[in-house]
């Protein structure tokens, strides 16, 4: 615990304080906030959206992005429920197939980006339509109802206010933290994000790293899709269509930079807590549900603006001229007593 506390970034700490204040406020203002059922619902939504945010965080860490997380989640949920409903595949096998498919979709993103050198934004935008299209092509937009009871009841299961699907999220988040901090591949991943040229010149396996990051992203998206399917109790083709915004909200508010090299896991967690608190609060006060979208947008802007203030100081944030990186004289020769030949 102490180690975590000491390593916590300023952003994460700030978010934690805001989270606690927000929770306190909600407790005081709306008594139903602390009801077991409300906490369960909120925790369950949070568990799924956090996975989505982590799926984005891991690709942001290598300086890329993944717009197809939602499409992968949707496709995986459909394939799993389709296997279970239409082909009576055992639950474990169906889900295993789905998760492998998700990771594979992600890996394909990574491979295509590495091979074609096409910007990850445009590439994953393209593949997201491919994945979503396959999903709709399979389902014709009709859900697979009646998934096995075991799966559906897992989605509803709780211990007190604690949703059981949160176990999956916690295990994966911890595993991701260990991966990034403690494994060679994890370190290489952050190295590639931090300085891709240096990483390549140092002989790091850049392709493997990129594919791994995208593979993990696809896998997390697939798990999120699976959990949402379990929670809904059916394979909805629309699973994942609204994930783009929360996927960026978490890491960006949490302190990630688009240029890569950082993976603020705690910041992402606390940012998603904040997003969940806001959504829940708005529901509890019976506000128009569209406010959620509005607030998340505002939060992202606020988050990046704050990051900018921290980086350059309040005075310079609105300075028109680019705060160009410090210019240095290029490495040049010392005053070699070199003589033009005619002087000889």
């Amino acid at each position, binding site marked *: 615990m102490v180690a975590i506390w000491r390593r916590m970034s300023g952003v994460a700490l700030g978010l934690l304080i805001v989270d606690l204040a927000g929770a306190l406020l909600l407790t005081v203002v709306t008594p139903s906030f602390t009801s077991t059922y409300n906490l369960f619902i909120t925790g369950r939504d949070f568990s799924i959206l956090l996975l989505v945010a982590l799926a984005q965080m891991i690709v942001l860490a290598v300086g890329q992005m993944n717009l197809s997380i939602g499409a992968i989640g949707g496709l995986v949920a459909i394939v799993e429920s389709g296997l279970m409903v239409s082909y009576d595949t055992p639950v474990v096998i169906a889900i295993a197939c789905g998760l492998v498919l998700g990771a594979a979709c992600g890996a394909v993103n990574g491979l295509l980006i590495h091979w074609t050198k096409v910007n990850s934004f445009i590439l994953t935008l393209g593949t997201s339509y491919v994945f979503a299209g396959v999903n709709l092509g399979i389902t014709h937009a009709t859900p697979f109802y009646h998934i096995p009871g075991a799966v559906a009841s897992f989605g509803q299961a709780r211990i007190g206010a604690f949703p059981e699907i949160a176990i999956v999220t916690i295990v994966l988040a911890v595993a991701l933290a260990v991966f990034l901090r403690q494994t060679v591949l994890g370190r290489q991943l952050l190295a590639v994000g931090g300085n891709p040229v240096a990483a390549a010149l140092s002989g790091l396996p850049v392709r493997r790293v990129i594919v791994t990051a995208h593979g993990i992203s696809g896998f997390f998206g697939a798990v999120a899709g699976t959990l949402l399917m379990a929670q809904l109790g059916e394979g909805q083709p629309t699973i994942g269509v609204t994930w783009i915004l929360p996927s960026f909200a978490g890491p960006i508010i949490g302190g990630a930079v688009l240029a890569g090299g950082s993976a603020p896991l705690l910041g992402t967690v606390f940012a998603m807590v904040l997003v969940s608190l806001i959504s829940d609060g708005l529901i509890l006060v019976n506000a128009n549900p569209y406010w959620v979208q509005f607030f998340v947008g505002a939060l992202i802007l606020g988050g990046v603006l704050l990051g900018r203030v921290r980086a350059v100081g309040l005075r310079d944030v609105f300075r*028109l001229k680019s705060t160009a990186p410090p210019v240095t004289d290029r490495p040049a020769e010392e005053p070699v007593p070199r003589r033009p030949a005619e002087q000889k």
Partner: protein
Amino acid sequence: MSATRTVAVRTRLTELRGTGLLRTLGLLALLIITAGFWIFFSAFATGFTSDFNLFFLLRSAAIAVTIGFAQMVVLSIGDMNLSVGAIGGATGMFAGWLMQVLGVPPALAVLLALALGTSLGFGNAALVVWTHLNSFIVTLATASLITGGMLILTRARPFSNLPDSFLGIAQIELGGVPVAPLVLIMLGVALVLGLVYRSTSLGREMLAIGANRQAARMSGLAVGRIVLVAHGLSGLLAALAGAMSVAANNTASPGIGSDWVLASFVAPAIGGTLLSGGLVSVSGTVLGGLLVATISSGLLLMNVSNFWLSVFLGAVLLLAVGLDRITRTVGGAAS
């Protein structure tokens, strides 16, 4: 030595690219592909060449191209605008509200909607310029702000009781030919944009800062002002596309714009606009939008599931950027 020869060929290709010949060839290829699809669908998709179908095809192409233009102008300065759809949807709803609830005459309503779109674009630009935030993040956030705001204000209720004089611009045919006035509007916009990029100081400046912002600034260009204009123009074009969609759908519905993100990138990308900035092709974007509309219409008539269209569009986008990448690699662009 074969290695030397390869280098020579590569150098030659680079020079060709430098003089724009490769780009012309690319456009020609796009034209041939589009023509090929027209021939194919005329032969195999019953009803493809009917007046009715051509009317709808060209009308949807006009809208797709306008959406593509809205993205193209920000791509030209090396930015992107994820709020194209949000602006189109919000301004479309605004125009619908003006006409249906306030009884504002259509021409004025559309003008006000365009003004709103332009100011929303200025808002994006202000955030991008003054805070140096990445345009991706800024427009992702403003897209959700704009759409959220629109839904809150309208409670997601459509305006479907619009004046006929407004709907006419999308529904009537021009002098018996199956062409909607929307197509003329789009062609007019294309003409203006073509002139802007070819022969005006503004167009040149946009391309210059798109290709190398630092060098452009250090050549004395007013980068901030140009970014402002480009995003404003993007907002204006998005609003125009929104108004066109409202007219085409007979109704201002809150769903307009929700599926524009891909479409906005596809048309310019196919047409040869460089996604990293500094190079645009107006005629390419027109052809790109036309190709997408052609394929959609043809597949629909051939009873191919509409859902597969999404796969197809995604694949076309990937192919287009992939091909662009390959020609550039072969051309050996200074890497």
